[in-house]
């Protein structure tokens, strides 16, 4: 089966998950005792002796620090869609175990609509699978605040509904905030005795809280591409034997209310076949194989493929049919 690739800019948003940054906890675990003892050697007359000092110590206090990142910075949605998920990672980058409270907020400036929180809106990735499934627990403030060891993280899913009145291109922002239950505030603020093992907790450079933002983008256009093929062998039959010719036809269609801007169709020439020069057509108009002023070309690198620029497609553009032919190579 050939690979069919379709790329469109602008109006179709990428929904690839972004791999998380490796946020690392800093430092020796809170509560660790660091001890120091010195010795002195000396002589009095002919006698040498050694004396040991007292043990002086410091105890490692707990740094309270958290990092929140959004793993789905842009989520493509349609108007009126419900339960649209956004994914975040909350990491304890302090040096002691810490409990975090999570808050989602949708009233954010700079967008065209406010997502509506689903109910429940926040879920914890209880099975640590990285994706939401029905075993994951709904988050309820104060009852299942995530407890994270130093360097530990939790994946959080946030669900929102999209207003039906939103139109193509509108964006709606949503924030997830995590704050440390031990305390937040200016870096250096001390919560005496509140750290792990009874040591002090000290707010780190993050202030003990973190926030990340994701954005829902309404894309009103959907693109479909349906491919069919016809095989004609050199004996007048339809067997896919070496030397036979395969004619491909791909029908591309835009539906919905938006625009797929600068849509570009590419299709790799399948392994074991060779492109038949001069067979590339768009809606029966022949396109030259060279890259020139017309919208199509056959490219031999990085791998053999055909490419056709379809321009800005909307539902009103109608179907776009791309055809080209290959022959099956000899073995």
């Amino acid at each position: 089966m050939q690979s069919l690739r379709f790329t469109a800019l602008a109006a179709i948003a990428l929904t690839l998950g972004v791999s998380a940054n490796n946020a690392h906890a800093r430092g020796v675990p809170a509560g660790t005792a660091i001890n120091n003892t010195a010795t002195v050697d000396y002589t009095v007359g002919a006698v040498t002796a050694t004396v040991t000092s007292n043990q002086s110590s410091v105890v490692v206090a707990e740094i309270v620090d958290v990092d929140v990142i959004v793993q789905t910075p842009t989520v493509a949605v349609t108007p009126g869609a419900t339960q649209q998920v956004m994914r975040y990672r909350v990491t304890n980058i302090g040096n002691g175990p810490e409990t975090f409270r999570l808050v989602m907020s949708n009233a954010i400036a700079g967008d065209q609509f406010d997502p509506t929180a689903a109910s429940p809106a926040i879920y914890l990735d209880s099975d640590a699978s990285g994706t939401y499934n029905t075993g994951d627990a709904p988050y309820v403030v104060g009852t299942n605040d995530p407890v994270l060891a130093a360097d530990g993280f939790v994946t959080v899913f946030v669900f929102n509904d999209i207003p039906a009145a939103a139109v193509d291109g509108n964006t709606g922002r949503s924030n997830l905030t995590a704050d440390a239950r031990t305390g937040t505030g200016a870096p250096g603020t001390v919560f005496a005795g509140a750290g792990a093992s009874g040591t002090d907790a000290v707010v780190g450079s993050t202030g003990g809280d973190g926030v990340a933002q994701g954005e829902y983008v309404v894309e009103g256009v959907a693109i479909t591409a349906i491919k069919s093929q016809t095989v004609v062998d050199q004996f007048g039959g339809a067997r896919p034997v070496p030397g036979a010719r395969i004619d491909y036809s791909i029908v591309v269609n835009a539906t919905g209310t938006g625009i797929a801007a600068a849509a570009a169709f590419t299709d790799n020439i399948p392994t074991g076949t060779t492109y038949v020069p001069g067979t590339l057509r768009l809606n029966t108009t022949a396109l030259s194989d060279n890259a020139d002023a017309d919208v199509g070309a056959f490219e031999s690198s990085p791998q053999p493929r055909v490419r056709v620029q379809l321009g800005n497609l909307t539902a009103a553009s109608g179907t776009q049919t791309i055809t080209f032919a290959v022959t099956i190579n000899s073995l």
Partner: protein
Amino acid sequence: MKTGNRNFIGAIALIASALSGQAFAQSQDCIVLKSTAEIEKEMVSDQGEKSKSLVPAGKVIPGTEVVWTVTANNVCKQPSDKVTINNPVPDHMALVPNSATGPGADITYSVDGKSFAPAGQLTVQENGVTRPARGDEYKHIRWEFKNSLAPGASAFARFRAVLN
């Protein structure tokens, strides 16, 4: 901990005391060794002048620089010779290069605790290759005081290390 020649017999003590004319009580150490941990705090006076002073360190967060000070006080009536203070760099801490001080002392360092050398002359092995040791890789510090420590006098050694 190195043990000195403590197993001398009483006769030597008598001889020593006869030579010095004074008693060196073998049950009493002549040097009292004290170690402290402090951090440097910046103070601002009412006039807005900034100054730094050392305060006891209790609970410190990773990244804090701790000032470790050792004082050796001679409590006997004889001078102490060849006074040498040894202090390993505490666990989970990295020595601040060039921070070791001690008036009147030759300061040497060691990575393995066995061979000591002045700063800049130590090496480490990394992936089978020998390279110069960095200042923060020194694990032991030694102060060898050049002069005798007079009765009642104190020798002073200090270094700084950062908590990992």
